[in-house]
């Protein structure tokens, strides 16, 4: 329950929270579960949860590691690759939790992270930081291996670095991967990167 609140920036309806975290029970039972979990929280943690009528949220002084992550990503602050990794950018959300809502949030966070990493790669490549661009793109691909934009960002950085043989090798790998997984060829835009 606290995990779900940590992922939400704004307050959520009690009923919705109960339904998300306990989807298998009826509404009344869910709300009862919510009440009893709130009541069973140890005292310091109880102070972290704020009620606003029918809505509930975390106290503004409480931070969640995911919030730190999203803040770094949305501000597009210039953080180095290593600092970003130290914040846990490769780590999955709540590994070992298999509730539906966790799977959904995990997927959402993964897609968002891959997008930010791809943009960082493009920005670094344009700034002449080719090595860093490659690392960002590779990390985006680790999260989402079929993301064509990230493959393209990687190829562009490899070409800019002068590593043409490696770029062609990687393009062949993308061709194989796309044929096996999606049954399609990479787009013309991607092919154009290695044909120049």
């Amino acid at each position, binding site marked *: 329950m606290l995990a779900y609140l940590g992922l939400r920036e704004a307050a959520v309806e009690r009923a919705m929270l109960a339904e998300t975290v306990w989807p298998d029970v009826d509404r009344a039972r869910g709300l009862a579960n919510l009440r009893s979990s709130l009541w069973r929280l140890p005292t310091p943690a109880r102070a972290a949860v704020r009620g606003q009528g029918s809505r509930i949220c975390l106290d503004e002084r409480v931070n969640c590691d995911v919030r730190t992550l999203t803040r770094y990503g949305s501000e597009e602050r210039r953080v*180095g690759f290593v600092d970003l990794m130290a914040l846990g950018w490769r780590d*999955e959300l709540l590994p070992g939790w298999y509730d539906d809502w966790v799977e959904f949030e995990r997927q959402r966070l993964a897609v968002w992270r891959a997008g930010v990493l791809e943009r960082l790669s493009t920005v670094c490549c344009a700034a002449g930081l080719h090595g860093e661009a490659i690392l960002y793109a*590779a*990390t985006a691909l680790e999260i989402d291996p079929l993301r064509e934009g990230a493959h393209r960002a990687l190829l562009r950085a490899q070409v800019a*670095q002068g*590593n*043409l043989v490696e770029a*062609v090798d990687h393009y062949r790998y993308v061709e194989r991967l796309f044929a096996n997984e999606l049954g399609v060829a990479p787009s013309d835009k991607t092919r154009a990167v290695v044909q120049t």
Partner: protein
Amino acid sequence: MRYEIGVIGTWSLRRSPGQVVAVRQQVARVVACLALNAGSQRRSLIANNIWPEVSDQRASANLRSALWHGRAQAPGLLDADESDVWLDDVVVDLDRAVEVARTLLAGDGAAHVPAVLFHDLLPSWHEEWLELPRFVHHHLRLQAIEQAIEARLDSHSVESALVLARQLAGREPLRESTHRLLARCQLAAGLYEDASRTCEGFVHRVRDVVGAAPSPLLDRLWSEIR
């Protein structure tokens, strides 16, 4: 009891301190796959990853058998309940390599570059689930070593830069950025003929092996040398 898992270069499993433990190939695959996935994974997921070509039922039977042999051959290494499989108390060489690479990339280019950075993840294993982690680590370690060479050149530790560049160029014969770095190290050391030979050798090799031309960056460097 603590185990040391080696997934860089060749597979190894040691019971601390240093005693080699032999396990079946199927056990090694499960252990390596877990080591690359933060030490724990869902049963169904790891079974399908490692045995993608067989039915789900067959894959989970294979996993059960691997766990059984694992417990017999390396007690205290693998543990499982009905939904997950995990590694108990282990040290993985990859974690150490990633840490060193990040230190080098974070700007401490003068830091020692250990031999572990010169090898890929289990290069002789042909498993689909290894491709992505291998690819990511490959880029991480090469960028880290090249940055270490650059840093040594900048701080005029030419000898040390040259040693690293030679070592990396020998392992990556078709990587141009490494050869440009090597030529720059040779120039800095006053070895003009060697620098010229490095460029010429690379151009010929790329033409003979893949029929490609070098990038304009190498052309420019080579003409400067001449």
